[in-house]
């Protein structure tokens, strides 16, 4: 359900961008999603296929890119990407401080670019 409404958002923006640049055939959409968001790439791709089928955008490809989680240590300021198994306590590789770091990347949910003719 969620993916369908995300794709509706994607298609609205894509159509605006196509019109703005005088393009009519969409080839590719590149989406970036942060590790903290709840996006399931396969579900997004399926929803994209379903919602473009039979329209002027049919056949275009949706590509997703995961933006890894990165944080700044609350104690020493070191920037690092917690390993998956450390995702919750997030021990800082420099000083060992756990918990409460500032999230720098990982919350993104955006259209990066499109390819069209």
């Amino acid at each position, binding site marked *: 359900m*969620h993916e369908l409404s995300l794709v509706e*958002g994607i298609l609205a923006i894509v159509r605006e961008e196509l019109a703005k640049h005088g*393009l009519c055939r969409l080839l590719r959409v590149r989406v970036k999603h942060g590790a903290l*968001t709840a996006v399931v790439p396969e579900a997004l791709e399926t929803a994209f296929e379903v919602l473009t089928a039979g329209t002027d955008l049919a056949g275009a490809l949706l590509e997703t890119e995961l933006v890894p989680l990165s944080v700044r240590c609350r104690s020493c300021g070191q920037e690092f990407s917690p390993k998956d198994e450390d995702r919750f306590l997030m021990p800082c590789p420099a000083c060992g401080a756990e918990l409460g770091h500032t999230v720098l990347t990982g919350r993104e*949910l955006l*259209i*990066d*670019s499109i390819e*069209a003719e």
Partner: protein
Amino acid sequence: MQVEVARPILESNDTGAAQLRRRFAAHGLLVLNLLSSPGSGKTTLLERTLTDLRGMLRFGVIEGDCQTENDARRVAATGARAVQINTYGGCHLDSAMVAQACDQLGLEDLDVLVIENVGNLVCPAEFDLGEDAKITILSVTEGDDKPEKYPFIFSQSQVMLLSKIDLLPYVPFDPERASTFARAVNPDLAIFPVAALTGQGMDAWYTWLKERLAAKRQDH
């Protein structure tokens, strides 16, 4: 050709949320987005809160559910103003649905507007509804690992209510563990253990509510 876009996918929801935020501010309203899994006790918490604070704070409630008007009826029985949104399968409320519900509810003569979201720990967290704070309920029967499994929603919330604590003697649930992991993604999270059914712990929650409303009025 390649076109750099760099636009958020939920842009139109965000625009709608910004409009709602201005509308809420014009009324000096404190707006809360109430989130949890299905059945964690959102409506029960509201029934108790609205009853206990009757005569002190004026509440309006927007109820989001897949189907039925049940929750709006339960809340209206406390004397508060309530409207129901049915999403018919949709897993979250968006800002357009809330704007429509606000037209129906009317925002005059209210202090606090509570939006009870569709029961779901994943999707609703991504949709800004113009609220001042997200309040996430975690009931002790769901397991203390939920903040580990669903970090995003806890990272976005200002309050975590640990609910149904009257059941703690009967279920293995470590409040320390749940709190530690929730604070790992959100050091500023306020945590209140409550049982809406018995009234246990509710005063700390009411104090938070009143302080937040006072702070909002001061900014105003």
